[in-house]
């Protein structure tokens, strides 16, 4: 049998290189992607400028609406307190996310192994999901006693369902012909899970992880609002409550800013992880030239 020329179908980027010159890069980022980065930055700068201008021009007091400069200043001066609070909130967020991933994936695997287990347990997972965490947080805090643990449980409750339901969907969406092929070669349940169902579920799991990352942070903050615990080991939510009571509105905005930035960072991190794991094979992550 003759062999097709390996260069004809593989590594299309490399093949194209001699024909189309490599795109010019500025600071390591292709030139064509810069407008997409600059446009929202410009928009943000205009917005912040207007904000600062209006606050100064109208002489709005800081306890009603502080300007961006004032907020950044407060962030600097209150950094020692706020950074500890940030660390407390992030610790609960990540612990909840890790728990959500391990429980969500394990339950999903169990459910695909036994239809009856899925039928008997999934409704309760749905009930946990649809019950507002604000409503059950006081109960959890009373029952558990330990504040950190109850916050963790609340954040976990919010974060775990997207991972569970997405992973179940992913595990069940393996190509039916591939499933038949595994059956044909007498693959064990474990082999079918390891070589077929788990890799097939990866894109779905990562989609769930992206949602759960943000939800874990929201869960941690909301639960802390409900718990309202003070002291040195309190998180950002308590700092916001506290600043509200004391009319330290710039500090409130600074804490809010930290929560938003944390949420954005979590989203970017999960998106990057998703891209790293999928960019070689999954349609969602493959860049196409039109």
């Amino acid at each position, binding site marked *: *049998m003759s062999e097709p020329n390996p260069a004809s*179908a593989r590594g*299309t980027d490399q093949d194209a290189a001699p024909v189309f010159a490599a795109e010019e890069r500025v600071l390591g980022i292709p030139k064509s992607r810069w407008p997409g980065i600059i446009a929202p930055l410009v928009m943000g700068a205009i917005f912040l400028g207007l904000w600062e201008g209006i606050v100064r021009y109208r002489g709005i007091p800081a306890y009603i609406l502080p300007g961006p400069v004032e907020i950044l200043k407060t962030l600097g001066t209150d950094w020692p307190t706020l950074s500890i609070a940030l660390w407390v909130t992030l610790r609960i967020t990540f612990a909840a996310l890790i728990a959500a991933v391990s429980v969500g994936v394990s339950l999903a695997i169990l459910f695909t192994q036994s239809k009856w287990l899925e039928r008997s347990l999934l409704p309760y997972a749905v009930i946990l999901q649809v019950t507002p965490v604000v409503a059950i947080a006081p109960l959890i805090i009373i029952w558990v006693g330990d504040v950190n643990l109850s916050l963790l449980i609340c954040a976990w409750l919010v974060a775990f369902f997207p991972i569970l339901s997405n992973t179940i969907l992913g595990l069940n969406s393996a190509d039916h012909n591939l499933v038949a*092929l595994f059956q044909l070669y*007498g693959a064990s349940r474990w*082999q079918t899970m390891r070589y*077929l169902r788990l890799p097939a579920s990866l894109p779905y799991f990562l989609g769930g992880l992206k949602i759960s990352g943000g939800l874990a942070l929201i869960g941690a903050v909301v639960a802390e609002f409900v718990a309202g615990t003070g002291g040195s080991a309190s998180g950002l939510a308590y700092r916001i409550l506290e600043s509200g009571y004391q009319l330290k509105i710039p500090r409130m905005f600074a804490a809010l800013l930290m929560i938003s930035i944390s949420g954005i960072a979590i989203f970017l991190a999960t998106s990057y992880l998703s891209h790293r794991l999928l960019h*070689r094979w999954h349609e969602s992550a493959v860049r196409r030239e039109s």
Partner: protein
Amino acid sequence: MIVSGVTEAPPQGRAGQRPLVSIRRLSKKFSNGTLALRDVDLDLFPGEFVSLLGPSGCGKSTLLRIISDLSQPSAGTIEWPGAERADAYGKEEHSLGFVFQEPTLMPWAQTLDNVTLPLRLKRMATSEANARAEAMLALVGLRGFEKAYPRELSGGMKMRVSIARALVTEPKVLLMDEPFAALDEITRHKLNDDLLAVWERNRFTAVFVTHSVFESVYLSQRIVVMAARPGRVMSELQVDAPFPRDNLFRTSAEYAHLCRLGSEALKAAIEA
């Protein structure tokens, strides 16, 4: 040299040869009541190339699934007189390869890992599995593509990977379910030639499902013509042209004559 012809009788066993697979009065009824197959008799002999030719809905694919034990017959028997091997659970283990209508590759795995899959499922050592898969990829003309992902390959190349995966266990029977139906004609001709070359070299029993008369005549020694509703065997066509077959055969009067016989048999099956 033409001894080819259409027989109306059910397939007769060849003198002195024991069939590899023997199907008797096999019927398959789906749970929705559809009679997919009715009273099918078919023998498959070691090393032969058989095509199952028929319109859509004639049960060709169902028959392949039953042969491969992916589906169970509702009535009748399927026996493997030649097979004595059984696995640890006492279940008979048949040495089979299956090529689906789509390449059915794992998109997350590189070509080599796709081809070694059946060996890894049999817990063969990685080094040996890789060596065998590399040899099989070379045989189907894909040397140098071991590290490519399926999405980086063309449709024809993906099909080659699928064939390499089916053959890597060196099966006695290769079942193919319209494997080239989705390919363009040039690619299909090339793959037909290459499939025949591999078959002549390894001499497995090939069962090829198609609805193309031309493809079935070109490839096979025997064409089993099937009719639909219910799926059943109508007639058989012998193609005694010698191998290797090439473009000379594809343009010969004998080929044209056989294609006409095949088309008539298929027409009769559709009208039956």
